[in-house]
């Protein structure tokens, strides 16, 4: 449980997500270098009333797998949670894929704020096209790629958003009750990184879902696009409404917004087709 008085920024989405960890029984939380590391507290204080292990960036999935194997061998009940940002998911991807493949009893939570925020907003593979970061000052040139989609064939995989906490809690609880590899990919709009007012975190997160820039789905035995996103597809709001609130897209051209919108809709429709076969 996240304790008040921690080092998160105003309006931090990650701490909203952290609160849902109380859905998990016997949690042991692993944290690589990330915003979460700083939020979790500076020695000798910890901001989480939980067992937390801080680990180097790319090692997170493997340390988690090691802990879960250790607990299994020693007969200790525990739920090992690898809590990482999109940056750690990038740098540890080989290990992440490997623990998924081995079906290690690990729950991975990716709090995705679409850039390396802890080091001051550099591009990650999650950063959307045309968003400005300090390493893409003119805007990113490539489309983002979803880490959860790339691991959709392994265990329980779901997306969630801090804009829809009830849905997030449900998926957190469900993932926590399962064995083997589980992945929860949580969309986390970041006020300082995306350059919007701190009070708008939840609103932006919801706009992302309603404009199809973030799709809520769940792959258990079968892939299901969550009702919230299905409704959003039927009553889609214009991309502009989502994009214009964010300073990272400052100066974006009309046709570029249209391109992003097209990309988002196409991605949703691809997922609809996938739903029929997966």
């Amino acid at each position, binding site marked *: *449980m*996240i*304790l*008040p*008085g*921690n*080092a*998160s920024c*105003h*309006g*931090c*989405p*990650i*701490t*909203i997500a952290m*609160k849902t960890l109380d859905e998990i029984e016997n949690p042991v939380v692993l944290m690589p270098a990330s915003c979460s590391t700083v939020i979790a*507290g*500076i*020695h*000798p*204080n*910890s*901001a*989480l*009333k*939980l067992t937390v292990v801080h680990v180097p960036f790319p090692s997170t999935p493997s340390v988690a797998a090691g802990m879960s194997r250790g607990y299994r061998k020693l007969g200790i009940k525990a739920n090992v949670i690898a809590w990482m940002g999109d940056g750690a998911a990038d740098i540890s991807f080989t290990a992440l894929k490997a623990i998924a493949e081995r079906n290690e009893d690990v729950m991975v939570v990716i709090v995705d704020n679409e850039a390396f925020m802890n080091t001051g907003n550099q591009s990650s593979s999650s950063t959307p096209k045309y968003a400005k970061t300090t390493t893409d000052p003119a805007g990113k040139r490539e489309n983002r790629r979803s880490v959860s989609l790339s691991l959709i064939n392994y265990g329980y995989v779901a997306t969630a958003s*801090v804009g829809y*906490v*009830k849905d997030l809690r449900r998926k957190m609880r469900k993932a926590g009750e399962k064995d083997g590899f589980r992945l929860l990919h949580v969309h986390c709009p970041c*006020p300082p990184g995306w350059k919007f007012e*701190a*009070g*708008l*975190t*939840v*609103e932006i997160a919801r706009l992302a879902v309603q404009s199809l820039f973030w799709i809520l789905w769940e792959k258990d035995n079968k892939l299901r696009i969550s009702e919230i996103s299905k409704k959003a597809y039927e009553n889609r709001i214009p991309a502009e409404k989502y994009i214009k609130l964010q300073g990272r897209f400052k100066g974006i051209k009309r046709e570029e917004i249209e391109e992003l919108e097209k990309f988002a809709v196409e991605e949703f429709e691809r997922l609809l087709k996938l739903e029929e076969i997966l």
Partner: protein
Amino acid sequence: MLDPLISHPKVGSAGKTGEWRVFKPIVDHELCVLCLECSEYCPENVIEVRDDKIWIDYDYCKGCLICKNVCKMKAIKAEREFY
């Protein structure tokens, strides 16, 4: 050996973060229906129910105003604390 490696849970790990506040959320208890949406979305985990009323721990509330924006009853308003 272990002192430098182990950290213990503490409220206020980053100090009295209420001092970071520019806007202070104020609850209008007349309008509040105790739906707890504000508490659910509060990133600082400082909103709870005390004596059947929403209570905000101003010692640590950073004043992000997410609570104000998610409140369906528009029962939270913001007051500027600094100029």
